[in-house]
């Protein structure tokens, strides 16, 4: 199977759950040489269709790019658009390197085919990091060929020519020819090798490093954009499914008489769910109602009578679980990182600060609930879905149908939000199974209740941190105890400890200069489908670490920014591996030598944010500033939140400042929008959202009880300061989330004197 979390590489390879993913994709794709090697070169002239469907001659030096004789430039977006702007961001890199006229660019979405396009699993803030260079090469290859063709025609040296605005130009003679007119000649040339390409200097970029509006903007504001829920073919029927309320439960019996009596209901079909755990590529047990329209299907579902065998998770109670984990972490666990001797630091300490940090389960709650359409014809299957991982969906559908993956085509619609939920193809497999069973084109529609109940939830967590301060006022010891069910448990029930990948999301890569560090973890059996939510374990881990550091600063009599700069110490690259016990720091699946943890980059964003936010200024009563800094997904972020708390404990957030170093900035407008949205997403986590489970079933049904932030409570002004950086570009989808919540909690302390140890914030009990 090609489905997995990017954080579970090790487990999956050991257990052979999804070793394929890392064999054929991600880094290997780049290792074999990107777009110009590894079978991704077409290097041929062929005919392509223009936007009016007419056949025209074209130049297609690689799978991402086609230039038509009429001047149209067609760029393939092979990663999924869920709101990050990647469907614009990667194509604009190609266009900029090519020297295209952006108004003549048409973007087409790739179907799921990793052999052809390279990795398509859109998560882990990977897209720009992984494809910046391949996209540049894709554009540069076409540019090279067009220039060669023009130079030959003009009888001038190729290096005197350039491209701009969709033309090849020769400055000395003033000659210029549009790309379209060069297609025939250029396509007769050989596709250049990577070493023949001269990539542009940063100063030559017209789009990279600037603001470009998203490609789908007009379609979105006019209601024409097509999301998963909008997918439609002739005669499409709608399926709504009654899922077993408890993970791993099964159908005992069901009565569909009342459901079938509802006008418009066509068929009722049971779905056999996966085992316990059901993994991500198998559906949950359920009974599906297929109807002429969504309303009939919903009513049919409500009328179903199902008796469940609820299975082994039917006693799960999340409140009790959190209490038990909080108890467990008081004792010693499995040591995962060790530096010096913490016990000595503790016995010699002048001050000891110790706290427990609790955080709940969360749901992704994309405003578009999962939805997928499947059609089976001539023993092949075609799917339209809002998926982050089309190749994974393709493999999962093929397996479920017993079909060769070559016979399955997965088309990717726009995603009405993703945040990690839509990288799991369970709902797509449901559509395929129902299409097969019913012989009808079926679009599965999850309701909000389905989405909150049957998500791959972000897991609850309990942590305890002990910080010691010595006689010299130095932070001498740091002991961090961590308990939560691992994401690996969703793939394999035997996994009961957090993986190196999960701990490496902020905990084991604790970068501060503390002589004695010990990090311990605990066994924890999962009773849910645990998934990954925008920035994953960084959320609770940064919350605990960064709020504790605020207390450390106070205990040392320092302000939080000065404390952080002091603890980061001298400029250097940190590697963590030598201190990890039987483990390795995955560094977001990148070589730590290539993408080091660099203290000076972190200090630079801290200094910048402090300056921009006016850190240290006197705040009126009831107001306060809070600070946190966190590196995730290789991007460095510092954040200062301003908060006001009134006498009724009403929290408002007038200002947020972020300073970020994400290497070379590609689309600055979308970088800002990711940070604006990340602050809002994190506000929900800090102040609003919690999933609780009783008797194995989620208690929240809809947005009335699972709350996310609304406009009046949202941060008012979000200022994003992007460091001008020459470093390799890294992602921005997830990095805004982790530092915001602790910065907000620290601001609440500054405003009220109340420390926050439990999420979401409740000032009446804090």
């Amino acid at each position, binding site marked *: 199977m090609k489905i997995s979390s990017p954080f579970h590489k090790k487990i999956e390879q050991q257990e052979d759950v999804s070793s394929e993913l890392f064999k054929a994709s991600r880094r290997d794709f780049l290792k074999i040489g990107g777009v110009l090697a590894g079978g991704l070169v077409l290097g041929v002239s062929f005919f392509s269709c223009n936007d009016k469907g007419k056949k025209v001659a074209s130049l297609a030096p690689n799978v991402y790019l086609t230039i038509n004789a009429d001047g149209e430039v067609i760029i393939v977006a092979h990663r999924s*658009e869920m*709101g*990050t702007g990647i469907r614009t961001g990667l194509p604009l890199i190609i266009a900029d390197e090519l020297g295209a006229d952006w108004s003549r660019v048409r973007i087409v979405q790739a179907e799921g085919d990793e052999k052809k396009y390279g990795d398509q699993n859109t998560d882990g803030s990977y897209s720009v990091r992984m494809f910046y260079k391949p996209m540049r090469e894709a554009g540069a290859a076409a540019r090279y060929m067009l220039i060669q063709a023009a130079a030959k025609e003009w009888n001038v040296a190729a290096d005197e020519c350039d491209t701009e605005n969709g033309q090849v130009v020769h400055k000395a003679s003033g000659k210029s020819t549009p790309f379209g007119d060069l297609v025939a000649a250029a396509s007769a040339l050989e596709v250049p090798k990577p070493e023949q390409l001269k990539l542009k200097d940063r100063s030559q970029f017209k789009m990279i490093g600037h603001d470009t*509006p998203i490609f*789908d*903007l007009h379609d*979105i*504001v*006019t*209601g024409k*954009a*097509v*999301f998963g*829920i*909008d997918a*439609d073919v002739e005669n499409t029927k*709608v399926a709504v499914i009654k899922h077993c309320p408890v993970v791993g439960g099964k159908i005992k019996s069901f009565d569909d008489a009342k459901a079938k009596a509802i006008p418009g209901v066509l068929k009722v079909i049971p779905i056999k769910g996966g085992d316990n755990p059901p993994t991500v590529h198998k559906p949950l047990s359920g009974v599906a109602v297929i109807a002429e*329209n*969504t*309303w*009939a299907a*919903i009513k049919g579902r409500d009328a179903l009578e199902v008796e469940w065998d609820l299975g082994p998770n039917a006693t799960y109670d999340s409140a009790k679980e959190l209490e038990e984990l909080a108890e467990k972490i008081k004792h010693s666990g499995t040591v995962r990182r060790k530096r010096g001797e913490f016990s000595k630091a503790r016995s010699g300490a002048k001050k000891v600060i110790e706290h427990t940090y609790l955080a709940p389960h969360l749901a992704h*709650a*994309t*405003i*578009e609930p999962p939805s997928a359409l499947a059609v089976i014809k001539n023993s092949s299957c075609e799917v339209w879905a809002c998926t982050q991982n089309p190749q994974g969906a393709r493999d999962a559908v093929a397996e479920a149908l017993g079909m060769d993956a070559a016979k399955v085509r997965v088309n990717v619609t*726009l*995603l*009405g*939000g993703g945040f990690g939920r839509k990288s799991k193809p369970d709902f797509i497999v449901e559509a395929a199974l129902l299409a097969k069973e019913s012989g009808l084109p079926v679009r599965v529609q999850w*309701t*909000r209740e389905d989405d909150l109940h049957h998500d791959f939830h972000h897991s609850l967590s309990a942590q305890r941190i002990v910080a010691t301060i010595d006689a010299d006022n130095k932070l001498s010891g740091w002991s961090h105890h961590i308990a939560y069910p691992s994401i690996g448990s969703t793939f394999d029930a035997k996994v009961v400890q957090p993986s190196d990948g999960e701990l490496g999301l902020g905990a084991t890569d604790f970068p501060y200069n503390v002589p004695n560090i010990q990090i311990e973890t605990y066994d924890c059996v999962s009773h849910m489908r645990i998934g990954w939510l925008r920035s994953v374990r960084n959320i609770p881990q940064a919350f605990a670490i960064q709020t504790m550091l605020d207390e450390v600063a106070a205990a040392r009599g320092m302000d939080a920014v000065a404390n952080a700069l002091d603890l980061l110490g001298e400029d250097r690259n940190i590697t963590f591996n030598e201190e990890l016990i039987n483990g390795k720091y995955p560094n977001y699946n990148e070589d730590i030598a290539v993408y080091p943890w660099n203290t000076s980059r972190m200090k630079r964003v801290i200094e910048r944010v402090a300056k921009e936010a006016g850190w240290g200024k006197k705040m009126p009563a009831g107001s306060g500033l809070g600070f946190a800094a966190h590196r995730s997904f290789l991007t460095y972020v510092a954040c200062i939140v301003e908060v006001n708390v009134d006498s009724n404990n009403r929290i408002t957030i007038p200002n947020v400042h972020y300073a970020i170093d994400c290497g070379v900035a590609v689309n600055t*407008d979308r970088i*800002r*929008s*990711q940070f*604006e*949205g*990340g*602050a*809002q*997403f994190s506000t929900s986590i800090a102040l609003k959202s919690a999933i609780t489970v009783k008797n194995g079933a989620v208690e929240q049904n*809809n*947005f*009335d009880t699972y709350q*996310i*932030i*609304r*406009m*009046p409570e*949202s*941060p*008012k*002004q*979000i*200022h*994003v*300061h*992007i460091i*001008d950086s020459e470093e390799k570009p890294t992602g921005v989808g997830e990095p805004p989330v982790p530092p915001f919540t602790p910065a907000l909690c620290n601001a609440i302390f500054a405003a009220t004197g109340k420390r926050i140890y439990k999420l979401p914030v409740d000032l009446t009990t804090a």
Partner: protein
Amino acid sequence: MSKYSIQINGKTHEVDVMEDMPLLWVLRDVLGMKGTKFGCGMAQCGACTVHLDDVAIRSCSVPVSAVGKGKVTTIEGLSENGDHPLQQAWEKHVVPQCGYCQTGQIMNAAALLKRNPKPSEEQIEQAMQGNLCRCGTYNRIKQAIITAAGGSNVILNKADQ
């Protein structure tokens, strides 16, 4: 099943559906007008917002039988060429992220400006609080509404570099 004759975007549509079918599903499933979205089905998120006689309603919670002779306007009929001042302002400020909630946001904002052409920031917040955006585009929405209302261009999200 019952027959209804409903006015949508200036045209009359005849439909034969269950009387309790929410307007949302009549629009989406029966008439194929998919700009109006489904997010919660119980008037909690605003993704399904349309106008009934110029007032914003949550179409997921209004049965077709309650529409009567009222004039329904959806995102498809808000403007002929997609150039309503709000749509233009939305493009100017590049409001959408995933875009899914945005048609509901625009319809809700359009109803607001109809009854209050110059809303204050606080009035905007109150009027828009029924529309959720999980991507977190609230500040740009606010800015776009202020722009469309011809108001001062308060910079709510400062672009600094």
